[in-house]
């Protein structure tokens, strides 16, 4: 349906529009969105735990976690509120390297990412491994700001950005695909920006 009188708009430059998923617009800033107050976490209070159901598999403190091999990922990110930001540079620990340090193969097909503030979000395990995702510790070479999820956030850049849990403190392998915080509140279980899977009623 063409809207009467709407012509202008901010069309993306034609050399970039193949990088902008449907319904998104290009953002130069880095907007902040979250469901509650920003937790102030000191690195000495931070830890990261791998769990299978309720059972802890391995836990790292800040120093131990920072001693794991670190990788860099520069990716376009896509927020469900419709902004896309190009070339965001992150550094952190690939999920593959976390699993290797724990000496395990992924035990189940589904994962819940857990955060210090009680937030959670579900991601299929296959979307976290094989170089697809990391626990990021640095953004643009500097510690991640608290309102962007610091000291550590999950980075799953190929899914809508609510899946990249801020203030992450663990991954819990689950037998079933269990909805997390936003998935229980009307958002899509998978969240592929290229298929525009924003809300639960989207195919």
């Amino acid at each position, binding site marked *: 349906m063409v809207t009467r*009188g709407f012509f202008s708009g901010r*069309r993306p430059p034609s050399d970039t529009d193949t990088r902008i998923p449907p319904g998104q617009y290009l953002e130069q800033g880095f907007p902040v969105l979250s469901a509650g107050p920003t937790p102030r976490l000191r690195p000495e209070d931070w830890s990261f735990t791998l769990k299978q159901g309720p059972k802890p598999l391995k836990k790292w403190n800040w120093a131990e976690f920072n001693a794991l091999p670190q990788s860099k990922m520069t990716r376009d990110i896509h927020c469900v509120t419709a902004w896309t930001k190009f070339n965001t540079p992150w550094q952190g620990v690939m999920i593959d390297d976390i699993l290797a340090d724990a000496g395990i193969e992924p035990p189940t097909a589904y994962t819940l990412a857990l955060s210090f503030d009680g937030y959670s979000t579900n991601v299929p395990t296959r979307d976290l491994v094989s170089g697809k995702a990391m626990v990021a510790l640095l953004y643009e070479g500097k510690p991640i700001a608290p309102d962007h999820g610091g000291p550590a956030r999950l980075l799953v850049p190929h899914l809508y950005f609510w899946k990249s849990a801020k203030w992450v403190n663990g991954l819990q392998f689950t037998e079933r695909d269990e909805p997390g915080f936003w998935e229980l509140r*009307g958002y899509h279980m998978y969240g592929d920006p290229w298929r525009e899977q924003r809300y639960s*009623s989207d195919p």
Partner: protein
Amino acid sequence: MSAGPSPQSPWQAAKITRIEKRTPRVTSFWFQPSRPFTHLAGQHVDIRLTAPDGYQARRSYSIASAPEAGAGIEVAIERLDDGEVSPFFHDVAAVGDEIELRGPLGGHFIWEESDGGPILLVGGGSGVVPLMAMVRHRTLRNKAVPVALVFSARVWDEVIFRDELIDLDDRRDGFDLVLTLTREPARRPSDYSRRVDPRMMVQAIERLPKAPRLAYVCGSNAFVSAAAEALIGAGVPARIIRTERYGV
């Protein structure tokens, strides 16, 4: 590209039935969806505009009207000079025009009667819009729920819904309005003229018969960060604070 609304599409046509300027920068638009729905106080809709060449722009806007208001939904839109959707509404849209709308959306920043109270609402600028839906819902549905609204605006003329809020405040039926102006002196004796801080939150909470059961904060990221810190500084537990940030 888009086939437009169909029985399968979550998007639907909605007609603009009324336009009313609220402040120099904020105008309310009433939309009548072709498939009417009932929303919850605090929810938003997505609005989509389509240019003749198929280019589409979509944005989320909070609903200001109460669920029981009927006769379409009210959305208050602030003009952003560098925006691409808000200038359309302010400069082009007219009563009778149709846009596409999807909703209602959002399942966290909502207040229902069954959530109980007292509730403490803190809004900065157009962040008051979803809080207004909660205030109106409470007034129409259950006035036994005590509500305090701390509303920060730059100047008196930018206090959105000002006459309605002051009228509700004057009823003294359990709704308290606390205005704070950041660039002008206070106009009413009980109001403030500074940015939100913990002491202001303590005094707002003292207007409630007991500690709030839930607190809702909405506005720009800078405002929400400051207001949430002020609430925590006033002893409000972080777990009862729900926030909605405009992302800028």
